[in-house]
């Protein structure tokens, strides 16, 4: 099923890319990127110079932040996009729903949608798609090989610890006044599984408010969260002051991992590095204590 | 008992009550009359202490009204106001028992309070309604339950604002008789009444207001004259005599030739019986 969906997505992207290639010059000069992973990939492919605007979540690499932000995730400023006269607007499916995209298409702006499922294969597929869009297939090959090398190292490391129980990971999403948990269908959960962690609250989907007792009942060894949310809610100390989390095995050992959300859940070109990094931190190597202010 | 001197009350620059003085002795039943908007209800609210006068002052038992604690005042005077809100399902009994509030502490009611509330309901003729919801009663029944609440308050001074509203003829007489008896037992009462003949039958003194001023003050005999009524109500009247001897105001249609009919003897006999 997943493969089929992927194949269809690929076909759509290829068709879009192919038809464009016939009509225009090979590489679009002005690109608007609507999600962080896409922006990151374009920069990694060496096509950063062609990106003229980004969404607010495009925070990596640092150069990307100099670009004008024209979308805040749920609100797309169509006029601002049109004013930039883009050759192509590109992003993942999730960031490209809504009436704004329809208007863009009607205005004959070329829109390219990428599949947004988490996972290594889709991540690599996205890189290939973007590479063919900007004509940087060789760079794509280099990135994917490097990612694969990281993942191979990860597999070896996983084998080395195969005797131990996988650490149970509770992924929380912190906002002022609310602690939510991310479900098993989230990108962060997929990354956790990739890095050899065990998802602590199976069956939960989407974002749900976390019951304090349930946090203890889930017996997580590690709490995983986004750096941004942790900072916005007062850092690690405030987190451990919340009822429930401090009583978990993770809380007693003060094991908290905070990761940049693009790195943890982006499934972009750094997927391999992210998985390795998370693995190391899950298994007590590298910094296991949270960096409140990295 | 109740003494008001040079009372004045204004809203903006308009004086609703202007320079009214009265002196109610124990055992007296006073009636305040006057046309709509003459300031009757305002005067009554000044006498109850509810409104503070802009000029003059009110004394009850020699003490200025302002000097009373609300609770101490409520043990001396009770009011029967024009209309009550009925949003909550209190029973008639509960409403009557509220008359005991000035005499009670915060929570418990003494057996004595329950006894008085029951007696009051019986006296107002609504003992059979005691477990009914107050809001579900008719206007007249509610009025009588209110009356019971006022009775239960055991006041010396009764202030009544159009107490006969909503009541049928028999209950109007009953209510007036009760007030009259109250005054004969040493209490006093001041009532705003529209029915001049009820006033003539029961009042010891009548105060007629016109535009906030006292237009006439005295016994029914002195006040209820065609001249006074013309001045206050702009109404032509002839004054007949009730079989009991008190004046009987008969309004005359000014536009047509008056049609006179002799009073019906049977009706007179009944009234005489009620008044004695």
């Amino acid at each position, binding site marked *: 099923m997943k493969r089929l969906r992927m194949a269809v997505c690929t076909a759509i992207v290829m068709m879009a890319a192919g038809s464009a290639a016939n009509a225009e010059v090979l590489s679009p000069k002005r690109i608007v990127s609507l999600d962080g992973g896409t922006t990151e990939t374009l920069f990694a492919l060496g096509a950063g110079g062609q990106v003229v605007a980004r969404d607010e979540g495009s925070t990596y690499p640092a150069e990307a932040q100099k670009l004008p932000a024209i979308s805040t995730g749920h609100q797309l400023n169509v006029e601002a996009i049109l004013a930039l006269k883009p050759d192509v607007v590109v992003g993942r499916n999730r960031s490209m729903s809504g009436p704004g995209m329809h208007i863009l298409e009607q205005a004959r702006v070329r829109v390219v949608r990428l599949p947004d499922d988490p996972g290594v294969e889709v991540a690599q597929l996205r890189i290939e798609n973007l590479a063919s869009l900007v004509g940087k297939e060789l760079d794509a090959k280099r990135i994917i090989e490097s990612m694969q090398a990281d993942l191979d190292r990860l597999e070896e490391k996983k084998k080395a610890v195969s005797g131990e129980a996988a650490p149970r990971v509770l992924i929380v999403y912190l906002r002022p006044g609310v602690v939510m948990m991310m479900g098993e269908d989230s990108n962060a959960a997929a990354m956790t599984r990739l890095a050899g962690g065990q998802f602590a609250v199976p069956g939960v989907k989407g974002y749900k*408010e976390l*019951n*304090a007792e*349930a946090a*203890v009942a889930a017996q997580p060894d590690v709490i995983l969260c986004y750096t941004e949310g942790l900072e916005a809610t007062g850092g690690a100390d*405030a987190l451990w002051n*919340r009822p429930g989390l401090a009583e978990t095995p993770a809380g007693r050992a003060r094991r908290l991992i905070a990761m940049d959300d693009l790195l943890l859940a982006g499934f972009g070109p750094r997927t391999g590095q992210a998985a390795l990094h998370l693995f190391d931190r899950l298994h007590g190597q590298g910094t296991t204590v949270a960096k409140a202010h990295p | 008992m109740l003494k008001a001197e040079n009372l004045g009350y204004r809203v903006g620059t308009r004086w609703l009550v202007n320079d009214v003085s009265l002196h109610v002795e124990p055992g007296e039943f006073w009636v305040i009359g006057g046309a709509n908007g003459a300031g009757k209800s305002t005067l009554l609210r000044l006498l109850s202490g509810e409104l503070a006068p802009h000029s003059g002052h009110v004394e009850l038992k020699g003490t200025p009204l302002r000097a009373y604690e609300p609770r101490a005042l409520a043990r001396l005077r009770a009011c029967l106001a024009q209309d009550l809100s009925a949003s*909550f*399902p209190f*029973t008639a009994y509960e409403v009557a028992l509220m008359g005991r509030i000035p005499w009670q502490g915060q929570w418990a009611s003494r057996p004595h309070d329950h006894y008085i509330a029951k007696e009051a309901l019986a006296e107002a003729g609504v003992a059979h309604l005691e477990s009914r919801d107050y809001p579900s009663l008719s206007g007249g029944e509610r009025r009588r339950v209110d009356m019971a609440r006022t009775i239960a308050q055991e006041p010396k001074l009764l202030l009544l604002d159009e107490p006969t509203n909503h009541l049928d003829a028999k209950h109007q007489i009953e209510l007036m008789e009760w007030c009259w008896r109250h005054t004969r037992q040493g209490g006093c009462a001041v009532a705003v009444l529209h029915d001049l003949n009820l006033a003539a039958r029961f009042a010891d003194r009548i105060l007629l207001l016109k535009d906030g001023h006292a237009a006439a003050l005295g016994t029914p005999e002195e006040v209820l004259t065609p001249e006074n009524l013309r001045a206050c109500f702009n109404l032509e009247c002839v004054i007949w005599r009730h079989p009991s001897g008190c004046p009987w105001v008969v309004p005359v249609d000014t536009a047509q030739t008056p049609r006179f009919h002799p009073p019906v003897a049977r009706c007179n006999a009944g009234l005489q019986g009620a008044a004695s």
Partner: protein
Amino acid sequence: MTRAVPYKLVFLILLAALPIALCVAAGMGAYPIALFRIPAILWDRIEGEGYRVLLYIRLPRIFLAALVGTALALSGAALQSMFRNPLADSGLIGVSSGASLAASAWIALAGADSRLGLWGLPTAAFAGGLATVWLVWRMARTSGATPTATLLLTGIALNAIAGAGIGLLIYCSDEEELRSITFWQLGGLNGTTWPLVWAALIPLVPGLVLLAPLGRALNALALGDREAYHLGIPVAALQRRIVLGSALAVGGAVAAAGGVGFVGLVVPHMFRLLCGADNRWLLPSTAVGGALLFLGADTASRTLVQPAELPVGILTALAGGPFFLWLLLRHKREALHA
């Protein structure tokens, strides 16, 4: 209509149900602790996970739920008598909307400020609620007196303004802030710790102490402001006391539990439909009834969809609404037959 259910019976049933409900609630939760083991756990102070979950997570939450329910129901009952409107509740004097506005503003504008940490949001909500009540009171005041009708209308006007403010903040906030605001408005006691309970007691206790002994005075006030005065009630002082007590109690409740309402509206009304309006019984009964309803709703909220959490505002409405409707319909039928 004569009412079949005597006051005393309902009050005693409610009173007896409270400790049972507290025990049952203590035995329920996402973390499995058998009910019969609770005394042993507490008595022997077995320093295990169960002890800590029970003592640091479950008990403070149960305790706060009961208190919040009491505060909402009691202030609802008092305000209904004051406004002589059975549909009044703490929302009418602006405390809920003011708290909601301040909480939203805190989330949208100051959410990153970590100096106040977890205390920032409840403090802001409490201050906002109290400030709004003060504003309503001052604006409704005309030459020393506060006419109830003016108070009502001022409250409604300020609610609308606060609603506009909240709308503006929602518009300005990003997706995550929006989520926080929404969750706050749905209410919940998930973040309860003992320090939060103690902090909530600071306004709650004076509020409840101000409101609880007003039974007889409220009866008089329910007849009308003038009638209450005639019965020896110092009306202006009583109004001040009701508004202040409600502001403190509901302000504390809302600060601790977020946007919870409805309990204040529905519990006194239910009691009136069952027994009658005598506030001497109504106040204590709704205090206990409110605690029961809110405790039940909160217990459901933390157990129904575990490990997740169902916002308690949804549950109070879901539990109270149909029951309320049933009572109303029954009442209507009886009124027809009477």
